[in-house]
């Protein structure tokens, strides 16, 4: 073909449609904000039931994870996500969906090598790099405290 890679890259970029950000960002804001409001209401409820702040916060995460797991199993989560985009991805719901959906999908390859091995296919890196970052922070903090 009588065209360089760079020229073709430009041509391809021009032909590819852009995402309609004027639609996606508001829906991400509303759904993501909405999930946090559900979290806030649950938090108030758990506080009323006498839990301390830390336990209530943890229980909110667990509740949202359970809710996402159920919606994923019912095949509803991906339909909400199609509209919400980052609105369901960024909250803890996105993490839960990333754990539950491969577990569900790869069950057909068995409980150990399928469900068990593939469960953290997408969410694994989140735990790996989150933990690594916190370890580095801990080491730095320890060194600072030596002086």
């Amino acid at each position, binding site marked *: *073909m*009588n*065209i360089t*890679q760079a020229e*073709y*890259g430009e*041509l*391809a970029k021009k*032909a*590819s*449609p*852009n*995402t309609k950000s004027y639609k996606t960002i508001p829906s991400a804001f509303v759904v993501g904000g909405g999930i946090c409001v559900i979290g806030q209401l649950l938090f108030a409820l758990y506080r009323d039931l006498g839990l301390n702040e830390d336990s209530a916060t943890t229980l909110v995460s667990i509740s949202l994870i359970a809710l996402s797991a159920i919606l*994923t*199993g019912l*095949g509803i*989560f*991906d339909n*909400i*996500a*199609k509209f*919400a*985009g*980052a609105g*369901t*991805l960024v909250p803890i719901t*996105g993490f839960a*969906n*990333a754990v*539950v*959906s*491969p577990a*569900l*999908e*790869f069950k*057909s390859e068995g409980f150990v090598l399928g469900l068990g091995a593939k469960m953290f*296919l*997408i969410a694994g890196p989140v735990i790996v790099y989150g933990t690594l970052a916190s370890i580095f922070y801990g080491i730095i903090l320890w060194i600072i405290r030596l002086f």
Partner: protein
Amino acid sequence: MSELLSRGVFRLTSCPSIEGAAAIVGAKEGEGPLGALFDQVHEDSYLGQDTWEKAESQLQTQAVQTALKKSGHKPEEIGLLFAGDLLNQCIGSSYGLRELQIPFYGLYGACSTMGEGLGLAALFTDSGLIRRAAAVTSSHFCSAERQFRYPLEYGGVRPPSAQWTVTGAGAVVVGPSGKPPYLKGVATGMIQDLGVTDINNMGAAMAPAAADTIRRYLEATQTQPGDYDRIITGDLGAVGSELLVDLLGREQIDVSAQHDDCGLLIFNREEQDVHAGGSGCGCSASVLCAHILNEIQSGRWNEVLFVPTGALMSTVSVQQGESIPGIAHLVHLSSKRWPQPEQE
């Protein structure tokens, strides 16, 4: 006997016929503009099986059986069977076709596989080595999704340039019946890679290959786009189709009036949320079997270039940051044979 026109371009002098064809698809394809033309539409995406992979194999089994039935031939009468799909090691074909007991070649040409299989079936029958051959390919949205992208229930977001893998299979029986549609020429694609790395923009990765194959066939046969009623690429989708017209335009070849694309024909992009259009081995195969062959048989189209396109990457090469090589194989279909110098 086939005649070599130029490197990789063949003229099929005996003009083998397509004796039977069948397209079996899923529900979403059934709701598309070609819905009424398919031989069977399955509402159940599992096709009564317990995994997506078995469902895909079932699509191939049914497509071949239906095509054989329509051609009036039994599996024993088929000299060679060419088949392929998108799954690792082509298991869709090997499991779907193992009961048929036909000499079998498994092919991998990604979404171009129908062009590859049909081209080989045509060349083998035209050469006189065998009397009759068959070609089949399939794809399944769910089996492709879990292999190449994300689990089905994962809430990821598809960018607008992404394409939707067709759930479907198409099968053809090629033989000497002497009735249209005829196969008049084959062009074998060359791998083209202009450096596209975006897995969600495969139309852009494949367009250069389609442009190259079409140009080579036109040059070898000394014909113009205007000599054909349609030039139908496999599954370039909206983005790739625009790029194809652009690329050929730079070579002073204007296909804008004749060009169409199976990925755009199979779905209604406004209503079906398929972004840039359909893709997958089953896309060009089912559009060929349900739509293109019908139009030729009914005489509405006389000369058609069918050019399935494939993106030859794997999940490994994509994660390693390699660019996506494209390929396109061309088959020239017609309602008329080549003028025969002497009738047999």
